[in-house]
C-alpha cells in the first residue's frame, strides 16, 4: 500500500495537530510532521495545505520580519481550527478502530 496516498487524506488534520500548541512557519511544520514519523511528507504539499486551512478559517497567519534573512510566515490555529481538529480526531479514531478490526488477522473467517 502506498502510504503517500493515505497521507493525502489526513494531511489536514496532521497539520492542525502539529500547530495546536505552537505556531509554526512552513518548514517548521514540515519538520514537526517528519519528526512525528511522517517522513515522506512533501514540503510543497504542507505549504499548500497551510494556505488552504488558512483560507478555510482554521489558521491565522502573520509575517515575522528577519534582519538577516527573508521573512517568515507563521501560522497559528484558530478556534474554528480547534473545533475542526476535535471533530477530525473523533472521525479518525472511529475509522482507525474500524480498519484495525477489519484488518485484524483471523477476523475474516
Amino acid at each position, binding site marked *: 500500500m502506498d502510504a503517500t496516498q493515505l497521507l493525502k487524506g489526513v494531511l489536514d488534520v496532521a497539520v492542525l495537530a502539529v500547530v495546536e500548541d505552537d505556531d509554526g512557519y*512552513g518548514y517548521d511544520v514540515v519538520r514537526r510532521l517528519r519528526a512525528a514519523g511522517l517522513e515522506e511528507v512533501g514540503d510543497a504539499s504542507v505549504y499548500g495545505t497551510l494556505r488552504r486551512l488558512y483560507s478555510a478559517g482554521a489558521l491565522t497567519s502573520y509575517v515575522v520580519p528577519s534582519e538577516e534573512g527573508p521573512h517568515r510566515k507563521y501560522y497559528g490555529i484558530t478556534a474554528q481550527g480547534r473545533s475542526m481538529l476535535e471533530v477530525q480526531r473523533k472521525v479518525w479514531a472511529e475509522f482507525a478502530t474500524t480498519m484495525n478490526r477489519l484488518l485484524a488477522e483471523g477476523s475474516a473467517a
Partner: protein
Amino acid sequence: MTTSTVAPQIAAFARAVRDALADLPEEERDELTEGLEADLSEAYAEDLSNTLPDPVEYAAELRSAAGLPQRQASRSGLFAEVVRAGRNTARDVLVAVRGNAAAASLLDFLAALRPFWWVVRAWVAAWCVSTAFGYSNGFVLEGGWMVGLAVFVVVSVQWGRGRWTFPSLRPAVLGERRRGGAAAAGGAVR
C-alpha cells in the same frame, strides 16, 4: 524583503515557482508563496545532499494541496492567455453590470429585443448570400431573394429559440453563454 542573504539558486527556484503560478490572481499567488524563500533556505541548508526539485512540479504540488485548479494545458500560448483574459474581463463586466440597477435594466431591455436581432441576422445572412451570388440592389432584397430571406428568418428564429440545434455549433455558442450567466448570477448573490 531582504533577499540579499538568500542563495541565488534558492531565489531563482522561488522565481520559477512563481512563474509557474502566474495564471493565478496576484494576491493568491503572493499568499501562496510568501515566506517561500525562508522555508526553502532552511530546508536546503539543513540537508545539503538535497537537490532542488523541478519548480514546475513543485508549483503543481503547492497548488493542488492548496485546493487551487491545475494550470491549463494551453498554458504557454499567448493566444490562450489573451482568450482567458478576455473571457475573465467579459465575465467581470457582466457581473459589474448586473450589480448596477440601471445597467441591468438596460441589459434586460436589450435582451427583450432579441427576436429583433434574430431577424436582423437572418437579413444580414440573406444579404451576404445574395451578394455572393451577384445580386445587387443596394440593401433591398426582392423577388426570389425574399423567399431566401424568409428561410433565413425561420432558421435564425428557431435557432435563437433553441428549437433547432446545430450539434457542432450550439454547445460552443450556448455553453459560453450559460457559463457567463451562471457567473453573473453568482456575482449577484455575492
